């Protein structure tokens, strides 16, 4: 129950609802703007710190132009006439540069499973060897691996994931050149990087028309036709020379006159055999009964194809099982390591993730044995991934080329301050090895720092404007309260005559100022949440932090309270007689 003096002030405020509303609105707008500005500024700082603390920003990335376009980190792309072919063997550059702590390959990859649609398609069509899995075009974004075999019915299944298949120029060209063969071929698992028509196999394997084949061949690497070898030139050229026979539509393939570049029954080494759908159906039947074989209820998972140092560089630790051994990498064993969230997804609720160890995942291509599960890394992008062993492309030059085009070499340094000199040394090394401008050498940290500086500048400007708004609002609130104080002078005199001390009067009006500041701050915070969300979103910083908005509202509310208390000075100088003189 309010005492009468407090009741008096409350009723005065309610009687002057417009004035009280303006007070609240003034505080709310000032606090809201300041809280949102503070939230944005703090979020930008935190975002920058978090971003740059990621191992991804302690690396120099060496890639081909194609794969650089797909990188998550900001890079500057320079037009190059690209002839280089990168393999994990090029990680040896790290041995010559002491600043480098880890060197590894990390290529995006994805695995496709027997989703509901595929299963029904498979069962419904009664597809056997040589028949199509898909009746129509592949799902949007799905890569299409035209069949290198003359039957043109099965798809290449597994690989790296650097290019969006259907959306890539090569995919469209390849498909149009050879009707539906490329599309209907089941993209099953694997190197979806070079994607459909973008792979040498695509153009060659599905074209019956030479021009079509040439068109498809040019899409290899996206305008990056590997030139004929020139003996005695740099290594990139010599590699491309090896591959050149197929990459540039060599005469033997062009002259084959068959539906595909590869003669029937003569798949190049390294190209996976087309799946046998009878066997696949049988495998599914078997799998359904075998508790050690898992059929995840997902269509697709994304992950990485990595070399062993990846895990050290990202401080990823194993929760159960083991990481890849050197043998796994050399032999390209069908193994898989799961991120924690991925493991939980596959295991399902209530089943410990450790129980997945040793079990086999049935993919569209075949089985992959789960050999390890990672501890939660605290980064959603890693926890929800899988990891396949990367092995250098072996076998035919064709395979070598399309895989190598999608290989990203990453060189991590312990001290980010040394990234610049490391970049220079790597540039020298790769220029020497491949020729000037043949690979893209990126320093994501440098680019990120530029973006972060821009964001900091914007957030500072917003904070300055917001604080200015708060100041103006607070001064106005102070003026309104001062005006109230002067109007209340007589009443203050009466209260003092009736027994109020100066301290009591101060406490009474301080409570009023506090209520105004607090209510305004709460309203301000309610305003600040969507406002800071919108600003964060505009700068691409993700969702706003309630903590920062709350902290900002608290600080701004404190400022508003301080200004609200200023008029109380009027009462400290007032004696009852002075107040009564006007009565």
């Amino acid at each position, binding site marked *: *129950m309010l*005492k*009468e*003096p407090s*009741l*008096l002030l409350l*009723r*005065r405020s309610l*009687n002057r609802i417009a004035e009280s509303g303006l007070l609240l609105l003034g505080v709310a707008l000032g606090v809201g703007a300041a809280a949102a500005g503070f939230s944005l500024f703090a979020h930008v700082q935190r975002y920058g710190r978090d971003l740059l603390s990621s191992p991804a920003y302690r690396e120099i990335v060496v890639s081909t132009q194609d794969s650089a376009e797909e990188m998550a980190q900001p890079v500057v792309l320079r037009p190059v006439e690209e002839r280089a072919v990168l393999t994990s063997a090029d990680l040896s550059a790290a041995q010559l540069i002491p600043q480098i702590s880890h060197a590894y390959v990390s290529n995006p990859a994805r695995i496709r499973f027997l989703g509901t649609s595929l299963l029904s398609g498979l069962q419904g069509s009664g597809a056997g060897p040589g028949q199509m899995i898909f009746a129509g075009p592949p799902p949007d974004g799905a890569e299409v691996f035209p069949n290198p075999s003359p039957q043109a019915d099965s798809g290449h299944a597994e690989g790296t994931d650097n290019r969006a298949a259907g959306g890539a120029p090569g995919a469209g060209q390849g498909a149009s050149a050879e009707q539906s063969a490329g599309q209907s071929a089941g993209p099953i698992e694997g190197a979806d990087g070079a994607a459909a028509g973008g792979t040498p196999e695509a153009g060659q394997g599905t074209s019956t028309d030479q021009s079509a084949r040439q068109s498809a061949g040019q899409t290899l690497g996206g305008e990056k036709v590997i030139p004929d070898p020139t003996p005695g030139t740099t290594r990139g050229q010599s590699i491309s020379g090896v591959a050149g026979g197929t990459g540039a539509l060599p005469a033997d393939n062009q002259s084959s006159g068959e539906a595909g570049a590869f003669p029937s029954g003569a798949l190049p080494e390294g190209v996976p055999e087309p799946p046998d759908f009878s066997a696949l159906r049988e495998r599914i039947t078997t799998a359904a009964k075998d508790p050690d074989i898992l059929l995840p209820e997902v269509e697709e998972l994304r992950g990485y194809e990595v070399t062993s140092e990846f895990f050290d560089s990202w401080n990823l630790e194993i929760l159960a099982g083991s990481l890849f051994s050197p043998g796994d990498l050399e032999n390209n064993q069908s193994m898989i390591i799961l991120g924690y969230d991925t493991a939980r997804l596959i295991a399902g609720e209530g089943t410990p993730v450790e129980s997945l160890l040793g079990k086999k995942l049935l993919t569209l291509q075949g089985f992959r044995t789960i050999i390890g599960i990672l501890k939660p890394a605290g980064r959603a992008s890693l926890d929800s991934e899988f990891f396949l062993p990367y092995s250098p492309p072996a076998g035919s030059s064709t395979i070598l080329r399309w895989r190598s085009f999608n290989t990203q070499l990453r060189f991590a340094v312990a001290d980010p301050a040394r990234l610049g000199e490391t970049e220079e040394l790597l540039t020298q090394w790769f220029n020497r090895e491949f020729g000037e401008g043949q690979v893209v050498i990126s320093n994501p940290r440098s680019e990120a720092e530029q973006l972060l500086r821009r964001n900091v500048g914007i957030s500072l400007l917003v904070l300055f404007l917001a604080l200015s708004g708060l100041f103006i609002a607070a001064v106005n609130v102070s003026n309104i309260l001062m005006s109230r104080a002067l109007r209340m002078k*007589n*009443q203050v*005199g*009466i*209260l*003092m*005559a*009736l*027994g*109020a*001390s*100066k*301290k*009591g009067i101060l406490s009474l009006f301080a409570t009023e100022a506090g209520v105004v500041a607090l209510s305004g701050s709460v309203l301000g915070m309610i305003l600040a949440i969507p406002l800071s969300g919108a600003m964060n979103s505009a700068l691409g910083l993700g969702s706003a932090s309630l903590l920062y908005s709350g902290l900002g509202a608290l600080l701004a509310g404190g400022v508003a309270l301080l200004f609200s208390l200023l008029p109380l000075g009027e009462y400290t100088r007032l*004696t*009852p*007689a002075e107040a*009564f003189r006007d*009565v």
Partner: protein
Amino acid sequence: MITLKEINKEYDLGEVKVQALQNINLSIERGDYVAIMGPSGSGKSTLMHLLGILDTASSGQYLLEGYDITSLPDREQARIRNKHFGFIFQSFNLFSELSALENVMLPLSYAGVSFRERRDRAYTLLSEVGLSHRTHHLPTMMSGGEQQRVAIARALSNDPDLILADEPTGNLPTDKGEEILQILESLNRRGVTLVVVTHNPLQGKRAKRLVELQDGGIIRDTGLVKEAVNA
């Protein structure tokens, strides 16, 4: 009860200094009924403010029950005003946002009285001044006489020793003014000390003691005559 010794009050108005009271010697005994009269600017209100500890003297001593209170801290002076004095003003000075009952309860809240007791005492006091039917009315809904009766009830809320009334009938018609004076005089008969500031000579004559002021000094104090006679 109250003794003022050599009290001076000077207002500093920048270049000009105004001597509001000079060499005031006044003693008010418990149960007194004192009328303070004088022309405008003679220092009546200043004297009343000093008596009610609403202001402090520039020099001199203020003794309450023998204790010099001029140097007491603000909080203690506020407590004395609350517990021992009741104020009645010409313009009533009720809070228009509070009901009659709440106006009377207000001084009790500074005395730390519980809500229930405040409410009960306020009801009783309003009944005593004949306003039991108007307890929940706002002052703006009441006549001047009723408002002044609420003010009297408020002044009595803490059972004061001294009531200081500044022109209590000044804003009232004669009949209503007479009612108010009768209430105040009945209080005095019950032992409450009453000091009334007035312009009205008739009211002055009704007091037991008349103190006349002119130019900040006391020019007549019938109490001194009585003392001399008694002596």
